[in-house]
């Protein structure tokens, strides 16, 4: 298995990269960490005519945190984000999810922004961005636009990035003080694609009651599915799990049947909500 031939550019600046992307049009592709793209090239499931390698754009290898967001640049590797203690304190869900992204060696090279742009419905970071109402910053020679997660994921392996655009940053809102988060997933082997996964954020109100509960699902829909479980939690987390089970419409593949995935969605919802609520109570003390 070898990639088919392609043209290759390795720009030294974002301005140069977007100029090249604009000139090559729809058959070009951005190469960042390559941990999803290169397998597709090797198996010839993808055969772009031109690759724009952004691995020299060290200006995009940042993780910056302010009061509202954790901003991850396009060349920040998963391992960099996972190791960042300030990012972990501001939004603990990032670390919880990243620990489930493939294996350490893949995380050394793969980028968080790249996995979001790849828009795999089995991807942990797509679910996290969707759950947190995050956004992606797209840069072109014409300027920049910021796309909300709910508008960003269009279908399996399809995002809103246009041919002349480079996704330069993903923005994850920080966790509110009264909230807790959790990630639960089941895979055939540790590090494999999740058969089903659930990310949850629970916010507690006065007296410790659930004020807001949301969960995002991987591997059960074409794009990251986000459910508002606030009302369903009134009857307890098990009830919320049953509610989620009724909402998801997974399909079968070689890894699992649709009904097993639906079952997992229910069980993992209950588990993630319990863990998230426990962490919210822990933070409140």
């Amino acid at each position, binding site marked *: 298995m070898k*990639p088919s*031939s392609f*043209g290759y550019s390795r720009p030294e600046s974002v301005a140069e990269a977007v100029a090249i992307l604009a000139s090559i049009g729809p058959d070009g592709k951005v190469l960042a960490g*390559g941990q999803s793209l290169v397998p597709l090239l090797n*198996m010839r499931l993808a055969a772009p005519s031109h690759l724009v390698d952004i691995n020299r754009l060290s200006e995009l290898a940042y993780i910056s945190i302010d009061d509202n967001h954790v901003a991850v640049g396009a060349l920040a590797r998963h391992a960099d984000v996972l190791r960042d203690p300030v990012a972990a304190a501001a939004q603990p869900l990032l670390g919880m999810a990243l620990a489930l992204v493939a294996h*350490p*060696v893949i995380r050394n090279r793969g980028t968080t922004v790249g996995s979001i742009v790849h828009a795999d419905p089995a991807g942990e970071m797509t679910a996290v961005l969707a759950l947190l109402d995050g956004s992606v910053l797209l840069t072109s020679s014409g300027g920049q636009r910021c796309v909300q997660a709910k508008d960003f994921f269009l279908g399996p392996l399809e995002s809103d990035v246009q041919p002349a655009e480079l996704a330069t940053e993903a923005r994850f809102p920080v966790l509110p003080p009264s909230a807790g988060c959790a990630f639960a997933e089941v895979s055939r082997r*540790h590090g494999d694609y999740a058969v089903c996964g659930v990310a949850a954020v629970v916010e507690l109100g006065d007296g410790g009651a659930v004020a807001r509960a949301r969960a995002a699902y991987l591997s059960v829909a074409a794009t990251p599915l986000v459910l508002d479980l606030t009302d369903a939690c009134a009857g307890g987390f098990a009830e919320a799990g049953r509610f989620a089970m009724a909402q998801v419409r997974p399909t079968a593949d070689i890894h699992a049947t649709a009904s097993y995935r639906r079952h997992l969605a229910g069980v993992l919802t209950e588990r993630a909500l319990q863990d998230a609520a426990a962490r919210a109570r822990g933070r409140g003390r």
Partner: protein
Amino acid sequence: MTETAEEIRLTVNGVVHTVTVPARRLLSDCLRHDLRLTGTHVGCEHGVCGACTVLVDGIAARSCLMLAVSADGAEVTTVEGLAEPDGALSAVQQAFADCHGLQCGFCTPGFLTTITAALAENPDPTHDEAREIIGGNLCRCTGYQNIVKAVLRAAELQRAGRAGEL
């Protein structure tokens, strides 16, 4: 798009190589075919098996998921570069021999490089951490238990080696 050849410079196990490759050449193929360093093994060619793992600027990476052109200017360490200059086995290699961490040996280069990098970052892993370190590498012979033991033994040998230097 017509294919263009790129001239790249790789420092592999301390030796500088200048080589001209098409952009689509994988780093694994560049090492094996262009540089004739066949210690790096190629198993699945899509990032699952870990046999082709090398160190790129000290960081473990799948050489089948990297283009050789992306590694231009990098320092690469392959399994051929792990032993001491006098041929003495590294701690990780010695631990594999001590613990029967291999049978057929096909997957071994990837395990050795992966574990070498991981122990540089975490010199004293727990049993669970040792399992996590090798979680991305497949071995069809050993059943992994002896490889987990080899990770812990390698850490022990490294600590003993450092104590000996003091």
